[in-house]
């Protein structure tokens, strides 16, 4: 016999139903893409293309190769969809592919060592031209580029899984609870993984920023 749900239980249940409904929709969509249903694949691309573009731009800050990388991401999604087991959310899986593609791109282009002028966005170039005017409004463009270079270097020092977790936490702003739900791991595992990733990042930063005298530069100076 099933008892009727009342009060907080009912609210929780409604919330749970929404999550379940979303998961069911997602699973159905994935099953259709696995069956090579082109309409389903178009639906998937339409649903996630803006997110993918945003992630790529966040990492590279250049629109030049964004579309090329996004195309590669969706091609990978198409060919690897059979390996997606629905333990994590589809967005988390696509997010992981996108971040990995960006790092592959950076590895190939080796832009992490040097910042080339071709990587400047138009906005960066304009701000560079008016750097004197913008000096009192925030960090200079070259400082921003150096900071981005440092962050990308640091993030390449941790595993792809740790990098994704860090990005989902810091860049996307998800809580530990949400990450647990998105990845299918439990909250303690997420906390341990994030803590270890942060420790690795600190060690990498201390190594990178060690001054010739031997003492690491204080993080406040970033």
């Amino acid at each position, binding site marked *: 016999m099933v008892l009727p749900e009342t009060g907080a239980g009912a609210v929780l249940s409604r919330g749970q139903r929404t999550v379940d409904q979303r998961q069911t929709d997602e699973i159905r969509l994935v099953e259709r893409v696995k069956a090579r249903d082109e309409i389903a694949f178009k639906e998937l691309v339409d649903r996630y293309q803006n997110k993918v573009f945003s992630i790529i731009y966040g990492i590279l800050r250049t629109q030049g190769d964004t579309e090329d990388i996004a195309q590669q991401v969706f*091609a990978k999604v198409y060919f690897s969809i059979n390996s997606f087991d629905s333990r994590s959310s589809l967005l988390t899986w696509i997010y992981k592919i996108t971040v990995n593609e960006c790092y592959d791109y950076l590895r190939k282009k080796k832009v992490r060592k040097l910042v080339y002028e071709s990587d400047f966005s138009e906005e960066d170039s304009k701000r560079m031209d008016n750097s004197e005017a913008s000096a009192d409004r925030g960090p200079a463009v070259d400082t921003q580029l150096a900071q981005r270079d440092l*962050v990308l270097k640091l993030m390449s020092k941790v595993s792809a899984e740790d990098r994704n977790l860090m990005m989902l936490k810091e860049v996307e702003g998800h809580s530990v609870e949400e990450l647990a739900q998105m990845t299918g791991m439990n909250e303690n595992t997420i906390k341990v993984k994030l803590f270890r990733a942060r420790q690795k990042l600190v060690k990498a930063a201390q190594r990178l920023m060690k001054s010739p005298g031997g003492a690491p530069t204080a993080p406040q100076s970033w």
Partner: protein
Amino acid sequence: MRERMRNNLESYLTGSLPAQENEIFEAMLASDAQEREQLEWMLAQSKLIRETLRTPPEVAAELAPAPGFYARVIARVEAEAQPSFWSIFLEPFGRRVAYASVALLLVMGLVMLSTPNETAPELAEAPGQVLMDDHPEVHLVGDTADDRDRVFVNLTALDQ
């Protein structure tokens, strides 16, 4: 201490740690300079990652792909789906052919290894050797001119 740090770190970094827990956490940090320094680095990194890699919402709104993006994705998928020469061996038929070839080579190798070596047939005696055996006084030494002279002398002696 390490466990408390690990369990509360994420909430502390986002400022969502309850007041009482926050006090305990900060007291713990005050008593351990090493942990405090590590946390300072973590705080600075957290801020740096957020500021550097987060796409501002106003920029994100302008990042929509150009028209025809899906068509270009499909074109790429089709281009990457073109079979290469090596992909033949991944097909079921190609795989079977490859396995059969390897099996055949193995069988041939085993047959060759298991066949006993027969002794080489003896060479037929050359007529010159037979002639010389009949006339042991002729000894070839390897010098052609000398050998010829010896043969003439022997023949002359035979005639006489």
